[in-house]
């Protein structure tokens, strides 16, 4: 079979037709208008990056997503990554923790410690960060439905280390809308979920000045199948929904917007991805100033974390994934990411091995220290093609945004399953194009192994004893806690939950008193009920 150039090769990954060559005539208002639409790095509209010096001032944060098994095992992986030169931590939680079940719950047992670390109590969080200074190290938490509870456990662990709140830095994902959209670890109905996300943002804006209380995320919608344009439009629609909810609570936009952070995928179509991320910065600046009347320039300064795409990786010829990850990391750097995760080449099979995760980190380090791409800010600016494509992504994303607005905004659209349907249909289209070889995948539908077989190694083996040990430890801790203060704290949590007050102070108090993640989630379950997603068809 020949590599050929079919129709899909002349369109970007999201289907935008590309011309053979670009000239100044392709720019909407020629080169003159370009300056205003770009600005300088660190200046509105931030197209060229959030900071003036970009990577000359400080490299991006190298943050490999990690965690599995018990807090001790995850702690060992964290220490390993830091020894290898990683500059911050990113915690993966197991599904029971993400969905608010203690490890002992019958539903939880098969899943304990598998896709992340198991956390039942604040003591587990203390063990997770044992020997790691929370006042110094930035930590990212991929947690959403139970984000307020995990934040409480984190601040209690910091208290036990003697770390003051004002020193805590990092990011809580806390983007529940994209759980309904794509990632699917929602628990409560959207309205109550948004309230909890707002409680976290309000509490953090007041007490945790260096902490990002939300990472508005398009990444998972992209991984679930949507294209770059939809990813951008959906992310902005979510950011608007959260901002509307917070403003409606009486918070001034400039009071929380500077701490909003974003999370995008960076996939393989290098120029389209760079254009998307540049367009994202310009689009958010326009939304912040025009829609929300931001006065603080930091409110419209979009900062983002880039996750490389797992769905671009293949189980066939897994070493090819090293190359794919390198291109994706390069794209994120050329686009000016603030922090980056590079996928392990073995992730189509399981949790990445130590070897794979080290190689991911080395990929970041080689791009940072050997390639020279960090020397100047926004190196692709002024390319006729990249500027044209940036404008194109922005205008197409605005159309997506307008469609969502017509449906009543992100929350209403998600409740009716509309963007979920877009995502599923786009995923199906991509698979059909791959099956028909319109869309090339090296090692899969072209240059595949002649016999078509792929062996699936098992790089990650969960120690099955982890589950029983975790359950036993939590039982001991429950037995050892003071029943009176626990009971009082749980009663208070129930009252503020039903009353509509900010739940964070009561959650912190209950966490201090030894309440479990499952117990606290049950208070919310009781008050809010559970959400079941609409049928996709």
């Amino acid at each position, binding site marked *: 079979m020949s590599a050929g150039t079919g129709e899909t090769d002349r369109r970007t990954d999201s289907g935008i037709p590309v011309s053979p060559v670009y000239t100044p005539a392709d720019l909407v208002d020629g080169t003159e208008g370009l300056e205003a639409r770009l600005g300088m790095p660190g200046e509105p509209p931030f197209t060229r990056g959030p900071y003036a010096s970009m990577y000359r001032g400080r490299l991006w944060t190298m943050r490999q997503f990690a965690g599995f098994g018990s807090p001790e095992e995850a702690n060992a992986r964290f220490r390993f990554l830091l020894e290898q030169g990683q500059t911050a931590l990113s915690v993966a939680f197991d599904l029971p923790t993400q969905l608010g079940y203690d490890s002992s719950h019958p*539903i939880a047992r*098969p*899943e304990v410690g598998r896709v992340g670390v198991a956390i039942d109590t604040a003591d587990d969080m203390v063990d997770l960060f044992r020997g790691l200074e929370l006042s110094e190290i930035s930590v990212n938490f991929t947690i959403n439905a139970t984000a307020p509870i995990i934040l409480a456990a984190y601040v209690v662990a910091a208290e036990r280390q003697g770390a003051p709140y004002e020193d805590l830095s990092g990011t809580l994902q806390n983007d529940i809308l994209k759980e309904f959209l794509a990632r699917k670890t929602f628990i409560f109905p959207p309205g109550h979920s948004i309230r909890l996300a707002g409680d976290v943002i309000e509490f953090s804006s007041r007490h945790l000045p260096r902490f990002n209380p939300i990472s508005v995320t398009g990444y998972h919608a992209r991984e679930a199948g949507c294209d770059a344009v939809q990813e951008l439009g959906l992310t902005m629609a979510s950011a608007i929904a959260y901002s509307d909810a917070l403003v409606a609570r009486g918070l001034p936009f400039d009071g929380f917007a500077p701490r909003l952070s974003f999370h995008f995928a960076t996939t393989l179509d290098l120029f389209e991805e760079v254009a998307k991320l540049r367009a994202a910065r310009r689009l958010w600046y326009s939304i912040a100033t025009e829609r929300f009347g931001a006065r603080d320039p930091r409110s419209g300064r979009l900062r983002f974390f880039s996750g490389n795409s797992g*769905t671009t990786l293949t189980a066939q010829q897994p070493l090819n994934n090293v190359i794919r990850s390198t291109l994706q990391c390069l794209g994120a750097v050329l686009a000016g990411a603030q922090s980056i995760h590079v996928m392990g080449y073995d992730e189509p099979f399981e949790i990445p091995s130590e070897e794979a995760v080290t190689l991911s980190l080395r990929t970041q380090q080689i791009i940072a220290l050997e390639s020279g791409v960090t020397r100047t800010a926004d190196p692709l600016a002024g390319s006729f093609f990249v500027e044209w494509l940036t404008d194109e992504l922005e205008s197409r994303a605005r159309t997506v945004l307008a469609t969502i607005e017509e449906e009543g905004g992100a929350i209403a659209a998600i409740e009716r399953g509309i963007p979920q349907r877009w995502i599923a249909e786009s*995923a199906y289209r991509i*698979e*059909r194009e791959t*099956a028909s070889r319109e869309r090339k995948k090296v090692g899969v539908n072209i240059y595949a192994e002649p016999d078509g077989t792929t062996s699936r190694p098992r790089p990650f083996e969960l120690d099955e004893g982890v589950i029983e040990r975790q359950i036993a430890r939590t039982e001991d801790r429950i037995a050892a806690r003071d029943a009176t203060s626990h009971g009082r704290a749980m009663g208070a949590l129930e009252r503020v939950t039903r009353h509509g007050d900010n739940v964070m102070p009561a959650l912190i108090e209950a966490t201090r008193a030894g309440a479990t993640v499952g117990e606290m989630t049950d208070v919310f379950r009781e008050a809010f009920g559970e959400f079941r997603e609409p049928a996709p068809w």
Partner: protein
Amino acid sequence: MRPPRIVLAKPGLDGHDRGIKVIAMALRDAGAEVVYLGLRRTAAEIVQAAVEEDADIIGVSILSGAHGPLVMQLLAERESRGISDVPLVIGGTIPDEDATRLRELGIAAVVPVGTPLDEAVGVLLDLARGRAA
């Protein structure tokens, strides 16, 4: 011959539903009747649906690594409801050695991530048609 009837579901807590939805759409386009039960379904719910729908085949997808215990629950439930003749197919991140063990336990087919779409659909349709005939 009536169209093959297929019950699909996500057991356990895993939310990765891109693959199973793609499979559902492709099966439907191939003429099958597909009942997709959605996320976080228990073994009892899945088998109950298979009984009610008179399913020719049950397909589940698990990408969290919890396939071992979840499959055991499904097999036990299928047995106790007396529909052990309805083939059970597992998709997801299933290592080779586990796939072999699952087949020995009575799983009709394992469709790991990376399986080409037409191949995955072919496996499911062949099993379903074999029973619908």
